[in-house]
């Protein structure tokens, strides 16, 4: 559905997007992940024909963004970072305007307005001025605007930015809900969002593509050895950190112990195990048998967050793999 190859956007001094290539299959929901300033918005703007690429090509539903912008625009629904609303318009008025701008007419338009209002749960604010709506409602009106012409592709730039946790969940559910009918690309710098909503993830950093893979594969890639967080407390108000550390290191299967934090007589250790060994039981026993209290013991599940940091933060240590193409 979307095919991007060697897409580049150069400005006078900087290269915002540097030879990015990826493909998105029909019906997929893809997370576009990267720190602020990674080139997410620029890439999306090129896909929506708002900005022309400096070099490289991008096609949406088989239409080139430079050669056939009108065909691309007809097939794309776009929600920019700030919902593009006119504060002096009423919700229904606004949807009518956007709908007719996208080429809808008469009965069809009325039907679509009713449909998106119900779909995005904005029917109750239909006659309110957009300027008076809360951030959450504005975001949903923004989404309604993007899907009004039933586009094949939805491009959402940070759809949950600035919302409160409840609204974030609602928006995510709505996006997941829409996934069946549209191919969706959503950008975000919030990792759990990708874990929760997306099937595929495209990670960019400093304009360069770092990885594209399924969310599951990426998590698995990071999870070679297990890491356990252990909080140990001394009985009589004191705790000798080095002694605990040596004790933990002696446990069979442990490869590395590292004291993360110490407060009074409590300390949190990060215990890394060798690949394939299961050390939690032994670690617990070692702590208790040595006469300390075991306050907490939990696996530090390698979240996408860490994968992300690994991939974007320290490029020297990150695995230099060639990006895996997203499969259909």
């Amino acid at each position: 559905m979307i095919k991007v190859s060697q897409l580049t956007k150069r400005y006078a001094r900087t290269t915002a997007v540097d030879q990015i290539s990826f493909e998105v299959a029909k019906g997929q929901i893809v997370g576009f992940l990267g720190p602020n300033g990674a080139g997410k918005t620029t890439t999306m703007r090129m896909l929506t024909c708002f900005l022309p690429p400096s070099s490289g090509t991008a096609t949406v539903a088989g239409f080139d963004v430079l050669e056939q912008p009108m065909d691309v625009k007809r097939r794309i629904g776009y929600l920019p970072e700030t919902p593009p609303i006119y504060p002096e318009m009423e919700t229904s008025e606004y949807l009518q305007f956007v709908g007719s701008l996208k080429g809808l007419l008469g009965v069809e338009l009325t039907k679509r307005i009713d449909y998106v209002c119900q779909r995005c749960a904005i029917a109750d604010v239909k006659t309110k001025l957009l300027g008076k709506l809360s951030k959450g409602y504005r975001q949903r009106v923004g989404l309604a605007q993007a899907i009004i012409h039933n586009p094949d592709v939805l491009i959402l730039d940070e759809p949950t930015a600035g919302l409160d946790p409840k609204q974030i969940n609602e928006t995510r559910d709505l996006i997941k809900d829409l996934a069946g009918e549209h191919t969706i690309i959503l950008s975000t710098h919030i990792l759990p969002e990708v874990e929760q909503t997306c099937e595929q993830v495209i990670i960019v950093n400093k304009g360069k593509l770092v990885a594209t893979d399924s969310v599951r594969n990426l998590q698995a890639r990071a999870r070679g050895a297990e890491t356990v967080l252990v909080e140990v407390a001394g009985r009589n108000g004191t705790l000798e950190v080095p002694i605990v550390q040596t004790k933990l290191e002696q446990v069979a299967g442990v490869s590395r112990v590292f004291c993360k934090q110490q407060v009074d007589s409590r300390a949190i250790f990060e215990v890394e195990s060798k690949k394939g060994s299961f050390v939690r039981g032994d670690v617990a026993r070692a702590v208790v048998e040595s006469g300390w209290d075991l306050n907490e013991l939990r696996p530090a599940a390698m979240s996408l967050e860490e994968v992300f940091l690994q991939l974007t933060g320290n490029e020297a240590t990150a695995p230099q793999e060639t990006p895996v193409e997203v499969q259909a």
Partner: protein
Amino acid sequence: MRNVWIICQKELRSYFASPIAYILLIMFGVVFGFFFWNALGAFVFESIQSQMSGRSFPMNVNEWIIRPLLQNLSVVNLFFIPLITMRLFAEEKRTGTIELLATSPVRDIGIILGKWLAALALYACLLLFTAINFAFLFKYGNPDWKPLLVGYLGVFLLAGALLAIGTFISSLTKNQIIAGAVTFGACLLLYVFGWVSSYDTATWARVLSYMSVATHIESFEKGVIDSKDAVFYVSVIVLGLFFTARSMESLRWRS
């Protein structure tokens, strides 16, 4: 064409859904009302004088009231046109709604024409407001309506040209105040360029004087449609809208 109408409708709605249109209408009405009252007062004073002097000379309403008023009208334009055009693009750029327009299946020229026509329509409403004053002249006097109509046509063309310039300037910035101030400066300069012809006849002075929007309105004010002046205004309109299109295009290549 349909898109032009959609954009135009939307612009008109935002003029009339906010206080902008009404405040402009009221202020324009008040200012022009004063000019009218003033011109009428002068006319009455002069005609009494002419009767008292014993040898009354014929006084023409067109000559004494309508023509000076039309002149005033084109000056008042200078102040009101920046107010009409300053938000057209600047506001969309500031709030980011320009992204919605630019990613919709609409050509740039459709957006530009729609916006300019909406501005022109609002200006036409202002002109209609002034017609109330002239209606009194027709009720109590017997002026010739043809020169008045031609005068209106001239003022309308002049406004169209200045509105096109204002639209272009608004597309250059995100800031309404900047757009308004620059438009005002540009309109004022284009208005006073004609002054140089009074003391200089060198080529540059003639060019400058030709560029002045004020020199081309004179024939209309006299009730004469001069095609060369009409062509001048239409060319300025086309040029202004053409520059706006280029500016929108460059917005894409630069931003």
